[in-house]
């Protein structure tokens, strides 16, 4: 698998890079928890993805790059999650998110040809409209609550009035299960409130040029037509930390080096992170991620 990945990128002239696992700054996303460690009494964090360092390379003029990286996410273990796992992350200059989706299709054709029959593409908005008759870009929390009643969707304990959390729940319960089984689906153009590090759509700024790739309902990859605006990126990081305060989570140190790199100029590019362990699961028809990871974390097992 790793050999095939390297051969694929060698052919495309994409350079393999290696970046640090430990860093002083960390991801601010309230849905991601970093492991922390110490060096000379200073707190450091294990990366949840190599994207900040890789973007610094891009800004420094590296050109197209890829990396096969070990990443770490606290509090994530289950049938499809291991707190330590392997990401394939790559960036393509001059690509938008749709061109990058094309390349992902090509890569998967070479990695797991027996599994790649069709690739569907559907926008986040269209998926919600067709399954639930709600427009995720305009809907209010009350309308979502009404729709869950109408469609008899169970409501998890602990839901408040955070619209994105409701959308995430509908995503799990209704949208992802509607994707074609045993086929790949790209879901693209997420609501702007879930932009993460993607740029907002140039025509309709209510959505962001972010996508995820699924096999059946299993998520495999997340990608962006990358945000290059340092000012806007800083605001998003700060906003993440505000949400963290509201939710009584620890705030995270913002990566000023990344912001300086964006300031100096990140080339127009698209990037994606693909979960290698989950691709491996598809290849061998494994039911649990621990079946494809040597020495996987021992989570509760039936």
């Amino acid at each position, binding site marked *: 698998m790793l050999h095939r990945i390297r051969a694929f990128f060698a052919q495309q002239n994409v350079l393999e890079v290696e970046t640090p696992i430990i860093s002083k700054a960390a991801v601010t996303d309230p849905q991601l928890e970093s492991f922390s460690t110490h060096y000379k009494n200073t707190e450091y964090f294990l990366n949840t993805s190599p994207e900040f360092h890789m973007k610094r390379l891009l800004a420094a003029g590296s050109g197209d790059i890829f990396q096969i990286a070990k990443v770490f996410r606290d509090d994530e273990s289950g*049938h499809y*999650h291991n707190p330590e796992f392997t990401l394939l992350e790559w960036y393509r200059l001059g690509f938008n998110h749709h061109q990058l989706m094309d390349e992902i299709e090509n890569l998967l054709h070479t990695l797991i040809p027996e599994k790649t029959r069709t690739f569907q593409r559907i926008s986040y908005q269209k998926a919600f409209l067709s399954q639930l008759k709600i427009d995720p870009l305009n809907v209010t929390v009350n309308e979502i609550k009404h729709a869950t009643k109408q469609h008899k969707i169970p409501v998890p304990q*602990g839901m408040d009035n955070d619209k994105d959390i409701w959308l995430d729940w509908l995503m799990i319960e209704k949208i*992802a299960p509607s994707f074609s089984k045993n086929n790949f689906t790209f879901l693209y153009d997420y609501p702007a409130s879930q932009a*993460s590090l993607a740029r907002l759509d140039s025509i309709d700024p209510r959505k962001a040029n972010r996508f995820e790739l699924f096999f059946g309902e299993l998520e495999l990859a*997340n990608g962006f037509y990358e945000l290059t605006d340092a000012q806007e990126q800083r605001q998003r990081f700060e906003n993440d930390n505000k949400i963290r305060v509201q939710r009584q989570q620890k705030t995270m140190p913002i990566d000023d080096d990344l912001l300086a790199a964006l300031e100096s100029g990140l080339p127009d590019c698209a990037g994606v992170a693909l979960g290698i362990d989950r691709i491996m699961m598809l290849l061998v028809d494994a039911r649990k991620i621990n079946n494809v990871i040597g020495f996987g974390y021992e989570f509760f097992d039936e």
Partner: protein
Amino acid sequence: MASYSTNEFRGGLKLILDNDPCSIIENELVKPGKGQAFNRVKLRNLKTGRVLERTFKSGESVEAADVIDVDMEFSYNDGEFWYFMEPETFEQIAAPDSAMIDSGKWIKAQELCTVTLWNGAPLVVAAPNFVELAVTETDPGLKGDTAQGGTKPATLESGATVKVPLFIEEGELLKIDTRSGEYVSRVKN
């Protein structure tokens, strides 16, 4: 009041849901890519024995059920209650049929069981994972048959019926997995 956060959820953890004590059977993390995580949990209501499914937004806390597990020896069953004794203090309790779920058919006198007490009253009795029981009734054994052959029913001294290999004879002692209700092996005396 003690409570558990979803990241402490694991099999066997006891919680209060809708005022009833429940035990977690299975806990699964679900997450839509980068978004909010949820815990999809399968639980057994320890009062009714019913299995239910609940979902929690990850990070939620749930009230802990004040239950304790005690190892007790089975004494006898008078048709209405099952009597157990704590082997060191000789304290006795009587468990109703409803607390036995499947356990009753696997145990004989002196079997050490796990009795779950809620506010001092027995909620659930769990038989050991493996028990050794003698065969009281089965068709005659077939000589020369190997483990590959078919199976036949055998009645055990506790009253349970299990499928056993054809070579098993009446009076033999068998090891049984009470969780699956399956024959494991013969026990050599």
